[in-house]
Every structure is written in C-alpha cells, then in structure tokens.
C-alpha cells in the first residue's frame, strides 16, 4: 500500500514544488512592491538629497576658493606657525618645568579638596541622621552629638574654602603660562569654522532620513504628506526649479502667513493629502476623490474659505478681480450666494420702462443686447421675435397701452443748445463712467451703459426727468444727481439726442399701436419663467387702475411681489464642493471631462448646453472671464475649516462685537444718496477706491479749499491722480481723470435750509475727523516764525522731498503736488502725517524719515506757507 501511494504521488510533488515556487516569487514581489513600487517618493527624496548635496558641495568649494583668494590660507598658515612656535617655547626649558610643577600642585590640591568634600558629605549625613533620632526620641545625648557634628561641618567648610582659593590662584598662574597658545588656537578655530559649518551641513544632509514626511493637524486628524515628495517646498533656498523639488512661490506671502505646520497644504491646494503612492492619487485626480489639486492662481480661490474680506488681501489679487466680475454680472440676482444676499439690483427698474425707451429698441435689446452695444452686460436669453415682443408688451403695458417709438433723426437740433450741452457733457465728465463708442469708461468698477446710440433708445422727456433726478426713476442707481439747472438739462438732452444716434434703428411704431392682451399674458409667463425680476425691479404695479383701466377690465394682471421673490437659479453656496453625482452633465457627459471645474466652465460657456429646458441666459463671456468666474465659484465650498482659521470680514466682526457698521447719517446721507460720492471715494470702509479716501477729510482738509474745489473741481484740483502708477500696485495705470463737476452749493438739501456744500462741510468737520489729528500744532515760543519757516525749508531741501513732490514746476511727480498745500491741508494733518504716513494710508510709498517733533513743526509751518493765489 505504501508503494502504491508513492507512485501515485510523484506528480504531486512537482505540483507542490511548482506552486510553492510561485508563491515564494509572489511573496518576494509583494515585498518589493511594498518597498519600492508603492513608495515612489523614495526616489524623489534620494534625488533631492543628491541635488542638495551638490549644491552644498559647490558652496563649500566656493567658500574654499574664496578663503584662499582672500588670503585666508596665508593667515592660517601664519597662525599655525605662531602656534607651533608657542608650542616649542612652551615645551622648552623653564616654562615647561614650571608648568609641570604648577599642574602637579594643582592636582594635589584638587585631590585634597575632593577628600574634603567627601568628609563634608559624611558629616552632613551623620548630622541628618542624628537630627532624625533627636526629633524622634528627644534624648539630650543626640543634641550633644548634633552640636559636635555642626562644629565639624563648619571646620571642614572653612578648610574647603581655603583650598578652593588656593586652587583658583594656581589655575590663574597655569593659564597665564598657556594663554598665548590658547588665544592662537581660538583664532585658528574661528577661521576654520566657516568652512567647518559648511562641511557639517553636507554631513547633516547625508544623514537626512528617507521617510514619509507629514503635517498632522491633530484636532481634525488631517495628515498632509505632500512634503514627502515636495521635499523642498518650505526650504530656505531653492534647490531645484523642477517639480516636485521647487520651493513654494511667493512663500513670504503664503507660507509666512499660514504656517504650514498649522495649516497643512490641502486646505488651500486640495488634493489627497494622505496619498503617497502615486502623483495622480496624491493630486486627487482619481475616481472617488472629489477634490482635485488646485495649482497656480487657481489656488487663490481657497482664500474665500476663510477670509471674509478679500478686498486688498495680499496674494489674493486674482480672486479679488474675479469677484468683481461676479458683482458686475450680478450672478447673485438669480443664484443664492452667501455674502452677496444684500447686494443691489444690477439692472434698472423696469416698472415704467414704457415711458423711457422706444418699443422697437426694447424688442431689439431683448433679442440680443450685444447687438445694441458690444459691452452690454445683459445676457442673451435666446428669445424668438414673438417672445421678445410679448415681454416688451408686458413691460410697456405697465405704463401704458400702446407700442410706441419716437424718432428724432428727422428733426434739426438746436445748434446753440447742442454747443452748450457739449460743454456741460465734458464738464460733468460723463465719459468717466459712460463710454461712447470706444471713448471713456475709465472707472471700470462702476458699470454704466454705453451711450453712443442712446439718442435712438430713449425719448427726450424721459431723459430730462432722468437727468433732473435719477433716483426718482431708479432708486438705488449709481447715477449721481448733478445740480444742473433746467436750461442745462435741456441743452444736455439736445446734445445727447442729436449726437449719439443709432443709424440702424428702425422705429416701427412712430404711430402707436395698441398692445394685444394675449401677448401681455404670454409676456407675463415669460417674465416669470426667466426671472427677469432677479435683476430688474418690476414691483409696485399690482394695482393698475390709474395706468390702464382698460387692460384691467380685459383681465390683464401683473406679477405680484410674492410671485417674484424666489431666486430662480441653483444655489451656489457650495458649488465648489458639490459632489459630482449632483452635477448633471446631460448630453455632454461623454464630450467634456467629468469634473467639477469643467462642469462650471462649460455651464458658463454654454449655459443651456447640458440638456433641453435650461433657463440660464448666455452672458457671452470671454474665455478669460469664464476662467475667472469659475475660479470664484470653485471657492464657494462647504469645507469644514476649523473656526480658528476663519478671518471674518469687518462687517462680521462688527456684528460679533455688537458694533453697528458705519452708516451715513443726517443730511449728509441725503447728499450721498444723491451725488453718490462713494462711487469713487471711500469713507470709513464704504465705497470704492477710485478716488482719495475721505475717512478723515475733516481733519485733513481746509474748509475754504473744499468749498473752492467742490465748486470748481477742474480748476483748483491738484494733480494727485496724475501720479504715474510705476507698476507698484497691480491694475491698470490710471488715466488722467478729474472729478466731475456736480455743481454743488446751488441747491438746498430737501427738508433743510442748508445748501449741500454746507452739509458736506459740516459732516466732514463733525464726523470725518480723527482724535489722533490735532487741530493745531504745538507752538515753539523760543523761535520766531520766519526762523522756523526757513528751518523747514532747509529740511525740505535736505531730505530730498522734492525728488517726489512738486512745488510750482520744480520737483518730481511721484508724490502729490505741494504748490497749494497751505490752502488745502490742515497743519495738524501735515504734522501728524509727517510722523507716520502709513497711519492714514497704509499703502503709501512715502518713506519714514523719523523726524523729531521740532523738525515736524518746522516743516509744517513751511508747508503752510505754500499757497497759490486763486480768486
């Protein structure tokens, strides 16, 4: 039986051996793969080490060469020779004898004091023991012994001190003998140490372990292992520009303010921080990881995660620009976006648009706004002619019952009025905001429509009313109310309607035609479906008795307020982290990459491309705008950033602190609402940064100057904004622009007796003042005024102020012109400004000269003498 088994089993042995061999091979492969295949970063770290080694080696060689070139080696040789000499003289004769003797004495003494020390310890130990028994038994013999021991201790201590002193003396005499040598040795050491340090660096680099390097943020258990490959990312020195070895770009902005050991990498860059096995996995460009890596400027989108205010945030310039775009197109009108809930309407009120524009124009505009002018902000809704007419009918029926046009092209304009109007046009600097054709529109942050064809769009009556009081037609418009007289307005209207005409306009309804009720109803449905009320106010017309009773009797009704409140678009508050499953790629699933960013971009490129029935209009964004907007949207995430990383906006901070945000009050608020100063100026954080900040204008400016300036801005105005930008800050260089003439001072503010200039001045002096800025400057009694002034003049020349500032025609143009500064600024402001310019304007380029108080008084007094006589 046993034999049978054997024969039977011979092939089984081969099977066994074969599979065992296979299993062994597989096991070896698994070990190899785990050691190398799954740990590609080892290669990177080795490579980095080699490169760093080469760099340090090079440094070292350079230092050696430098050392030799500067004669270091000669000096070293010299020192070494001296040392050798000192050595020989030390070795020879009496010195050596004496040294040996002293050393021996010292050693003996040292041995003695060691013995002494031991005795002392013993005595103390005995004392403590005796004390213990004494306290326990209170037997007097212990007390006696204690006293005895105490005496011993004192004696030994005394002896010890004496020995110590002797030792000290001996030590000094020994070191006196060897001091020359020691000094030389130290010098040599010092000379060598620079090179030694470099050598040590090389040695240290070789010792760096090849291992997974991670930043672990404990409380949220976040582990970013990015540095395992990006080994040089926070190094002090660039080792290689190649990835993954390069340093973090602009690390003084990003890393210095976000300590990598506290923030890690993936809060800003996303990606899969834990992954180490492949680039794709680490960068999150794999299935089942929803947060692919952000690189380059795109990373700035992450600033939005934590920073409530990104305005002026260093390193976030791109994303700041991009958010401007979001405001420009008014995305928040249809989509809920956190932080933008209280933004105003982007489009004008349309309730009475029938009294404003031509019907033919409205239809054409609805069909495609860009046909009217190319910079139009309103998107294209792809309406058919029929649909566009229905909507126009609905809008026109809110203020009438007819389709109607006016046509001025046949009329002959009044040449004199046109002439006057033209002058006013340029005085009021209409072109600052409005473009006409290719001209104007420098103030990019205020969107104003192109006016080159406006004469064929609106009627004269409306234009007159508009210019007289824009707020009456469109509350909340950015258009200021210029204090024109009725004659002024008439001439302006004449000028505008005759100058800016559309040659291609086809007014079809010069003879008004009754609007069809069916069309209005259709228009109403369209308005509701496409949510026109998102950007345009359409409310207030529920009751239409006065306007068109005839329509009401035919059953026409307008949308009520509660029918228009909802935002019709998708909420965007977390679009940047929306799971892919929730993004509907529809029919483009196969043709575009299925990731979040591609989805957003494609949606902006072709809003209705994913499937039928989508409603979002086409803004015809440029590819650059698409990229910018996508970057912003990508930053709207619901990522769980720890609260400690949050930088709330000023508003939020105020709210948290229970402080009311700054608000204009009283009559000045009325002036602001009318003249819209904050379109250009910023006051206490409100407004734009187009013109100088007026937060402390009351402390800064003199009343007389303000009056003159407001009355006649283009005459007295210093050439402040003509300063060349020199590329110190980002953005377009400012063109030569000046403040429009608002004709303030000619009218009373409503409900008051005061003129608007008085109100402005009053507000400036009451509100826009700082306690830090003194009203008057200290007076120096020991010196006459002319002396002080001449001292100031000297200082002005000495410190080279004129290389930036101009007086008269002399001096540079980098700083403000000071020719009339004595009329413009308060002395207190100048005094304070000279102390710390940055206090009031943090980004100012003026250097800090560290003037003493006296010097500042001299300078102020000198500057106050600079006055131009303009009357």
């Amino acid at each position, binding site marked *: 039986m*046993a034999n049978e088994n054997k024969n039977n089993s011979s092939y089984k042995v081969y099977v066994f051996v074969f599979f065992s061999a296979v299993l062994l091979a597989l096991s070896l492969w*698994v070990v190899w*793969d*785990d050691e190398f295949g*799954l740990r590609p970063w080892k290669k990177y770290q080795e490579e980095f080490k080699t490169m760093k080694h080469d760099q340090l080696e090079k440094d070292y060689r350079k230092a050696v060469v430098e050392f030799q070139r500067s004669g270091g080696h000669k000096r070293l040789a010299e020192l070494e020779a001296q040392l050798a000499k000192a050595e020989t003289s030390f070795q020879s004769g009496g010195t050596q004898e004496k040294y040996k003797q002293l050393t021996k004495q010292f050693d003996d003494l040292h041995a003695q004091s060691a013995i002494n020390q031991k005795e002392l310890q013993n005595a103390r130990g005995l004392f403590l023991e005796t004390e213990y028994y004494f306290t326990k038994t209170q037997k007097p013999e212990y007390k006696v012994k204690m006293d005895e021991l105490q005496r011993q201790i004192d004696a030994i201590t005394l002896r010890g001190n004496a020995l110590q002193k002797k030792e000290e003396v001996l030590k000094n005499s020994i070191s006196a003998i060897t001091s020359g040598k020691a000094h030389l040795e130290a010098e040599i050491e010092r000379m060598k140490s620079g090179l030694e340090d470099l050598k040590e660096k090389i040695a240290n680099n070789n010792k760096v372990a090849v291992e*997974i390097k991670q930043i672990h943020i404990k409380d949220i*258990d976040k*582990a970013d*292992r990015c540095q395992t490959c990006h080994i040089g990312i926070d190094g002090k020195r660039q080792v290689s520009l190649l990835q993954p070895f390069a340093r973090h770009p602009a690390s003084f902005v990003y890393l210095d303010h976000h300590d990598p050991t506290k923030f890690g990498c993936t809060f800003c860059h996303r990606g*899969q921080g*834990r*992954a*180490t*096995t492949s680039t794709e*996995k680490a960068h999150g460009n794999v299935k*089942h990881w929803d947060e692919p890596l952000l690189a380059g400027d795109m990373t700035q989108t992450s600033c939005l995660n934590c920073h409530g205010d990104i305005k002026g945030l260093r390193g976030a310039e791109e994303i700041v620009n991009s958010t401007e775009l979001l405001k420009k197109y008014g995305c928040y009108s249809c989509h809920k976006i956190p932080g933008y809930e209280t933004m105003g309407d982007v489009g004008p009120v349309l309730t009475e648009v029938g009294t404003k524009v031509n019907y033919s124009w409205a239809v054409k505009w609805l069909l495609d706004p860009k046909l009217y002018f190319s910079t139009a902000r309103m998107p294209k809704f792809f309406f058919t002619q029929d649909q566009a007419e229905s909507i126009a009918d609905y809008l026109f029926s809110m203020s009438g019952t007819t389709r109607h046009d006016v046509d001025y092209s046949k009329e002959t304009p009044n040449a004199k009025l046109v002439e006057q109007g033209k002058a006013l046009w340029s005085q009021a600097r209409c072109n600052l905001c409005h473009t006409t054709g290719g001209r104007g529109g420098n103030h990019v942050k205020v969107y104003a429509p192109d006016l080159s064809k406006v004469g064929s769009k609106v009627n004269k009556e409306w234009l007159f009313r508009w210019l007289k009081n824009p707020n009456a037609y469109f509350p909340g418009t950015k258009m200021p109310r210029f204090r024109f007289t009725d004659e002024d307005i008439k001439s302006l209207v004449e000028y505008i309607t005759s100058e800016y005409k559309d040659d291609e306009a086809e007014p079809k309804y010069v003879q008004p035609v009754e609007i069809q009720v069916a069309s209005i109803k259709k228009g109403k449905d369209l308005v509701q479906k496409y949510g026109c009320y998102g950007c345009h106010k359409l409310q207030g017309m529920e009751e239409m008795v006065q306007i068109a009773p005839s329509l009401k009797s035919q059953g026409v009704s307008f949308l009520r307020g509660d029918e228009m409140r909802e935002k019709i678009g998708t909420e965007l508050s977390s679009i940047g982290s929306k799971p892919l499953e929730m993004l509907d790629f529809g029919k483009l699933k196969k043709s575009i990459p299925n990731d979040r960013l591609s989805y957003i971009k494609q949606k902006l490129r072709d809003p209705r491309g994913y499937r039928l029935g989508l409603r979002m209009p086409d803004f015809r964004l440029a590819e650059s705008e698409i990229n910018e907007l996508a970057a912003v949207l990508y930053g709207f995430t619901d990522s769980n950033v720890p609260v400690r990383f949050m930088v709330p906006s000023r508003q939020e901070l105020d709210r948290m602190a229970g402080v009311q945000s700054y608000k204009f009050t009283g009559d000045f608020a009325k002036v602001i609402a009318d003249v819209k100063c904050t379109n250009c100026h910023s006051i206490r954080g409100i407004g734009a940064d187009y013109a100088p900040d007026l937060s402390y204008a009351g402390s800064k400016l003199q009343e007389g100057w303000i009056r003159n300036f407001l009355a006649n801005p283009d005459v007295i105005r210093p050439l402040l904004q003509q300063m060349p930008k020199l590329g110190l800050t980002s953005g377009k260089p400012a063109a030569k622009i000046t403040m429009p003439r608002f004709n303030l001072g000619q009218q009373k503010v409503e409900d008051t007796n005061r003129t608007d200039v008085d109100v402005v001045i009053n507000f400036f002096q009451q509100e826009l003042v700082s306690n830090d800025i003194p009203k008057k400057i200290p007076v120096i009694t020991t010196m006459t005024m002319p002396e002080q002034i001449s001292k100031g003049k000297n200082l002005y020349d000495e410190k080279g102020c004129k290389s930036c500032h101009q007086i008269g025609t002399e001096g540079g143009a980098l700083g403000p012109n000071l020719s009339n500064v004595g009329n413009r600024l308060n002395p207190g402001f100048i005094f304070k400004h000279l102390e710390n310019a940055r206090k009031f304007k943090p980004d100012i380029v003026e250097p800090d000269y560290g003037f003493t108080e006296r010097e500042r008084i001299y300078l102020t007094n000198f500057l106050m003498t600079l006055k131009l006589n303009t009357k």
Partner: protein
Amino acid sequence: MKRLPEITDKVKRNLIWKSIFRRDYRNNVRDRAQAIFGNVFLHLHPVQVRESAVKLRFTWGMGGITFFAFITLVITGVVLMFYYHPTIDQAYTDIKDLEFQVPFGVILRNLHRWGAHFMVIVVMIHMFRVFMTGSYKAPRQFNWGIGVFLLVLTFLLSFTGYLTPWDQLGFWAITVGTNMGAATPLLGYQGPFSEYLHITPYNDVRFALLGGAQVGGNALLRSYIWHCVAIPLISIILMFVHFWRVRKDGGISKPQK
C-alpha cells in the same frame, strides 16, 4: 554532501528536536497513524480515510478551502484591526492610510477583501456539492443544518465587514440591506401589522441592528463588533461542531445503496 546524513542524524538527536518530535518517523503503519493523532492540527482527521476523500473529483476540497479562506481572513483581519478605529471620524482615513502608509497595508486589505468574496463563493459551491452527492441524507441531516447556519453566518460576516471602511459603497449597501429589516412583519416599522405593536423607527428591528434610526457611528461600532468578535466566535464554535460531526457521522460520505 556525504556528510548530510551525519548532520541530519545529529540534528535529530538534539534535545530540542527530540522534545518537539518525540520520535523518528519511519513510514510504517504505526508511525503514519502516530503522525495524525500525535498532531493537534492533523488529529481532526481519522488515521485512515477512504480513497474518495483523497481524490479531488468527489469533494472538490471545497469544505477545506472554505476553512482555509476563513483562516486567511482571521489572520489578515487581526492584523487589520491593529490599524483600524471603528469611529466615523477615523475609519475612512484609517483605510486610506492602509493604502498610503501602513507597510503591506495594500496587500493585507486586498487579501482580506478578496478572501471574503472567495469564501462566500466557495461556501456556496460546497453546499451545492453536498447536495449533489446527497450527503445530507442520514445520518448527516443535522450536520447539513449546521452547514446552513454556517452559510448564513458567512453572508453576515461579509455583510458586516462591508460597512467598516465607512465609504459610500459600504454605507449604501448597508443602508439598502438594513432597510429590509424595517419591513419585517410586526417588528419593522414599515412592515405589516407593526402599528398594532406601536413600532416606530426608534424601536424596530432596524433600530436594533443599527443602534439608531440611520446608519451612523453606532451602526459602525455594531457592525465592527459583530464582524470581528461575535460572528467569528459563533462561526468557530459551529465549525467545530461541523467538523466533529463529519468525523462522527463516518467521514466523507460514501455510496450507500
């Protein structure tokens, strides 16, 4: 080469060797029997078996393969437990770290996962084989019953393990699976007649399974404990009964006519 026998001889005379193997093996009937009942692992077997048991074509080795898969899973599973916390904050990252950081983590997890699938497959095939050879018939009826329970336990082992990585796949598989529990007649809140027992989502069968009305931290802990402690223990006990009964019922079934 010549000295090899000498060396082996020396080794075999060594005290340590002798303490382990007791006696030399001489390939006679006595020693072959001794090899089986003298070994704690092998003594599960009888000393002699029928030829069919040695041939693959009758049993396909499926029972043994199932047991082997189970052992593999226990070993890999125990090692995996070192790297795993059954909490919703850590579970997922622990699995990620298995891939990215733990030495041999990838192969461990893969072996465990695929071993589990493999065990479910072979246990089903084992049942099929036992049915096809009629091996559940007398006297093995009871052992078939044990086998059925072991089959169900295998499914449950795999099912409870599905949730442990705390990813979408496991989460929704468990959600779908346990939602069935909510439809239990009388005891599930969506099941028939449950309203007569005042059953709500908070006191029904599914609540008991999940430790909550939804799959959450408690469900993860429960599935972990069922997966790593309770079901393996029950399975091991039943396995011993199963193996014991195979022996006591006469070993591999033989044709009885």
